């Protein structure tokens, strides 16, 4: 009985927990920052107008404006007036790398581990279900994304990775997994796939896709899951090592501040 009561209390506390509403402008800013840093939005690319951005994100115009202002003050966006005016992404490889590095240092090791676990849970399940539900047409689409991957740059490799994973989630036929995958891509991708800076990991990302495709062709759910999750694990391992390396390279007083 008391167990039941406790269960009810816990459920109720979830119902009436504060809604996640700390600054929608902050959320928009974070989303765009992530897209810029991860290279989904490229240097020099024109952003949609404030009005159409507000519509597509489902926020008020002032919120979109506030987010853009924050991005401008961080030097990630410039706004030009006039006929060919608008807001443009300004992000070089160097500034993107500095940004990602800062975020890496701000994240604790537990944060990183938890993020990787969450990504594994979603992507692994998507891959597992997809292995049972993929038609030949689905395989063709996945294959064409894989073959079109541009592995010469980190941004290209990340775009291919993101698109392939999104399509894989779609093949699982689950709207929830697709939505969660989209959310995770904007939140986790810039950090988790940082290893794609290195040639060897870009090659590994392609190899992991080959493994997924082979597992899908065989209709082998467990192999599909492990092809995805082992790549996530390798990316996490790299990230943890990189964080250690960057921390050790920093002067002690800087780390303390």
């Amino acid at each position: 009985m008391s167990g039941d009561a406790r269960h009810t209390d816990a459920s109720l506390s979830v119902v009436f927990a504060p809604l996640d509403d700390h600054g929608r402008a902050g959320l928009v800013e974070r989303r765009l920052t992530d897209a810029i840093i991860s290279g989904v939005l490229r240097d020099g690319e024109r952003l949609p107008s404030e009005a159409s951005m507000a519509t597509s994100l489902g926020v008020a115009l002032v919120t979109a404006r506030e987010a853009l202002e924050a991005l401008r003050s961080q030097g990630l966006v410039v706004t030009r007036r006039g006929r060919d005016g608008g807001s443009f992404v300004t992000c070089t490889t160097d500034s993107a790398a500095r940004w990602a590095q800062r975020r890496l240092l701000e994240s604790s090791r537990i944060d990183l581990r938890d993020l990787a676990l969450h990504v594994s849970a979603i992507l692994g399940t998507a891959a597992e279900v997809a292995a049972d539900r993929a038609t030949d047409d689905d395989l063709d689409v996945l294959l064409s994304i894989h073959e079109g991957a541009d592995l010469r740059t980190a941004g290209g490799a990340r775009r291919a990775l993101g698109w392939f994973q999104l399509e894989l989630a779609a093949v699982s036929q689950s709207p929830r997994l697709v939505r969660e995958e989209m959310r995770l891509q904007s939140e986790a991708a810039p950090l988790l796939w940082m290893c794609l800076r290195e040639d060897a990991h870009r090659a590994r990302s392609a190899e992991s896709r080959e493994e997924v495709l082979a597992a899908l062709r065989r209709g082998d759910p467990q192999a599909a899951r492990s092809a995805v999750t082992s790549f996530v694990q390798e990316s996490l391992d790299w990230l943890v090592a990189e964080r250690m390396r960057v921390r050790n390279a920093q002067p002690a007083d800087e780390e303390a501040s």
Partner: protein
Amino acid sequence: MRSVVMSSAPVEAARKVGEIFAPLFEQVDGWRRTVEELPSAVAGSPGALDDAVAAFALPALRGGSGLIAGAGLICTPALLPGPGWHVAWWLFDGPGKEPRRLPSGAPGSDQLRDYSAMEWWRVPVRTAARHLTGPYVDYVCVNDYVLTVTTPVLRSGEVTGVVGADLLVDRLDRLVLPLLLPLGAPCTLVNATARVMTSTDARREPGSLLRMDGLTEALLPLRQDSAASLDVELGDEARVLSCGATSLAVVVGR
């Protein structure tokens, strides 16, 4: 079981399933004619074209119950001034609410802006005929499980775009199941790739592939011609019947 499967009841049920889609197809065909008959001055001006599309897309979404989750026109790249694909597409945003326009270049959607690989674009453009895509998770527009009907718009013999509508599987399910349940035999609605849209059998999940000996071969005519008429026996106790011109089929008996 065999007597039910071989009776005229499944034929009747398949026909009625087809009839759910027929008016929706007619509606989309009507949109195609509307766009094809627009004066060149309208068809060549993004603003005027958008108004013409809104004139049929908005009423279809406003008057609806959410069955039509999205509707509009997507033009071939470089047909109109401006970069990329011209998208005049509106989404159902809840009962009583004004439909929302899909932005043509949403931030972060860079990788998705090329629609040419999408089945709802690729197939009708190649065949110059109406096509039903899905069921599939549409992550470009409605972020939900849908069937998409698209039909190519031609001007001077050239495809200039597609008009179409996204139909929520959840809503279709509520219309289709009452037609299949009275049969008293397991009954599953699949597309031409044997993907289950809905089933009276709890073990057949929507989205899964129906695996039965000979089913892929039986469905082959529907992959080639969506209006193909199909009434095939599979083994002793199953029968596959096409549903009008939808490219969908009802599998009765197993």
